[in-house]
């Protein structure tokens, strides 16, 4: 079995709405252990574990913790990012619906280590069940004395509130999310300053994906060094993978880093569905690269994914079979981002409109070699000049398609040329 259940170990064995069930399977034990540790020691364990962000960007979790811990001031925030809008991702939903307390416990440990005072879990508005489950779990944790003032007789106080999104993908971006918590449209801010120095309400703020928080209790329980032995040398621990598309078994699977994409699709997913041939796979979600079948032996780890200059680490694997052509898939991606662009910066707002026009020409088989050049340069410009991660990563699918499916583009152009010259 290539699965390794670390943060999903309780799932299926507990009633997610029962804090007693959670506690009976070592729930909140890691938090109690952390409370008996020195604050710096907690951060050191996360550093030794080399835990990297699970939301996509892969930023080292300990660096954010050190940043927040250094900030003085009476009010500091921790935010659990559960604005899971990336198409093909449903792991945060899976975690929140099935083991909500693990996320709360992770946030508590980070809050204790960094002297944070208040927490938010920002959940996308579409996830009604997650919102009610997390609210209920926070209430239960408060009743059991894990949240509130002077927790378990210590000098540490911390509360968590749930905030709901209202249908905006861009709010998964950290500053857009912060603006949204403040009640405003989710438009990003110019960095620096970074959230750890000036975040929500201009106070120091640490934002992590909820899967990242779910790993924290595991690290404290087993120790950072032991945790670092799971996975590969540079990508430690496990990753939740969301397998979807034209594959037999869809769902969330937990695997150690280093497993190949092909084994996830074949061993866990049972291969392409209904006897069709697999044509391509989109990694990470709409913002990720599209790779051909022959690249599937690639290992799932941060270093390999970084080659695509994209935030592909969120964990989606979308399988697409031979019935679909690359241009209709690229169009879906471009339409998605055109709708979700916040409109603040020009490359992203105007760029997507132009991308759609050019891709439509390829779909209609009316594209010229000039269109190919325009597409290539526009995608590069958007990647390099957009203000936030949305516009920087949205051209990834196009850039990767131009690299791995170039023949499809050339065929299309040659067809049009022949048609123009009356050769057809």
């Amino acid at each position, binding site marked *: 079995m290539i699965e390794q259940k670390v943060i999903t170990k309780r799932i299926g064995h507990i009633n997610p709405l029962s804090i007693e069930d959670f506690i009976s399977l070592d729930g909140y034990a890691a938090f109690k252990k952390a409370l008996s540790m020195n604050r710096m020691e907690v951060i050191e364990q996360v550093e030794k574990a080399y835990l990297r962000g699970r939301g996509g960007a892969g930023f080292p979790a300990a660096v954010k913790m050190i940043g927040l811990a250094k900030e003085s001031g009476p009010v500091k925030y921790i935010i659990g990012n559960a604005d*899971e*809008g*990336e*198409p*093909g*991702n*449903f792991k945060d*939903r899976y975690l929140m619906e099935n083991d909500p307390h693990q996320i709360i416990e992770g946030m508590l440990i980070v809050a204790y280590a960094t002297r944070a005072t208040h927490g938010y879990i920002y959940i*996308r*508005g*579409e*996830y*009604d069940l997650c919102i009610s489950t997390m609210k209920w779990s926070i209430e239960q944790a408060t009743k059991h004395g894990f949240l509130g003032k002077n927790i378990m007789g210590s000098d540490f106080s911390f509360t968590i509130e749930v*905030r*709901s*999104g*209202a*249908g*905006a*993908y861009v709010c998964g971006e950290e500053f857009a999310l912060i603006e*949204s*918590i*403040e*009640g*405003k*449209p*989710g*438009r990003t801010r110019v960095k620096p300053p970074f959230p750890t120095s000036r975040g929500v*309400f201009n106070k120091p703020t640490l934002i992590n994906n909820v899967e990242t928080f779910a790993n924290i209790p595991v690290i404290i329980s087993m120790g950072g060094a032991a945790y670092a032995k799971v996975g590969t040398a540079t990508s430690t621990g496990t990753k939740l993978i*969301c*397998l*979807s*598309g*034209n594959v037999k078994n*869809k*769902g*969330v699977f937990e695997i150690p880093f280093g497993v190949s994409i092909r084994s996830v699709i074949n061993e866990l997913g049972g291969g392409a569905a209904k006897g069709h041939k697999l044509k391509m796979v*989109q990694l990470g979600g*709409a913002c990720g690269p599209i790779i051909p079948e022959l690249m599937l032996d690639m290992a799932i780890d941060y270093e390999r994914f970084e080659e695509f200059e994209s935030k592909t680490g969120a964990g*989606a694997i*979308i399988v*697409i*079979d031979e019935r*679909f052509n690359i241009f209709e*898939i690229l169009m*879906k*991606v471009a*339409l*998605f981002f055109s*709708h*979700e662009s*916040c409109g603040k910066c020009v490359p992203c707002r105007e760029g997507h409109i132009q991308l759609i026009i050019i891709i439509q020409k390829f779909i209609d088989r009316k594209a010229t070699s000039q269109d190919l050049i325009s597409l290539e340069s526009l995608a590069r410009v958007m990647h390099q000049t957009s203000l936030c991660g949305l516009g920087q990563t949205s051209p990834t699918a196009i850039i990767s398609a131009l690299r791995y499916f170039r023949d499809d583009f050339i065929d299309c152009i040659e067809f049009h040329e022949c048609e123009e010259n009356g050769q057809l």
Partner: protein
Amino acid sequence: MLLEDILLKYPPSEEHLIEILLEFQTQKETHYISEEEIAKIASYLHISESRVCSTNSFYSFFSDKPRGKHIIQVCKDIPCYVNDSFNVLETLQKLLGIHVGETTANKKFTLETTSCIGCCDNPPAIRIDGKMYTNLTVDKIKAIIAEYRG
């Protein structure tokens, strides 16, 4: 619940604007906010009306035009798209006799598309009034709509 009652549940500060808009537009049968209501919220939160409009127009959940009693959202992203052998959107358009973005004459249904709703493990999927319906077939869609029609 009246807008006034909802407002009183929240402290009068801008950070609660999205929560107020969400609660109000979910409860209101026509799921939208009128000019008078925008003015009321702005005055309660001590912010300008344009700030309320700006947030209201930014998020897909909100509207400044009346919508049907039930809002049907159809996922249009890749994991659903590659598993949608019968075309969910067209099936619904035919069944309801409206196009996407429109409301039925009896004000019962509004048909919208939505970005991925995270049901990629059971596609294709739609969301009606906050409830997810997954693994759809033509017959299943017909049964769901019949149930809402009552």
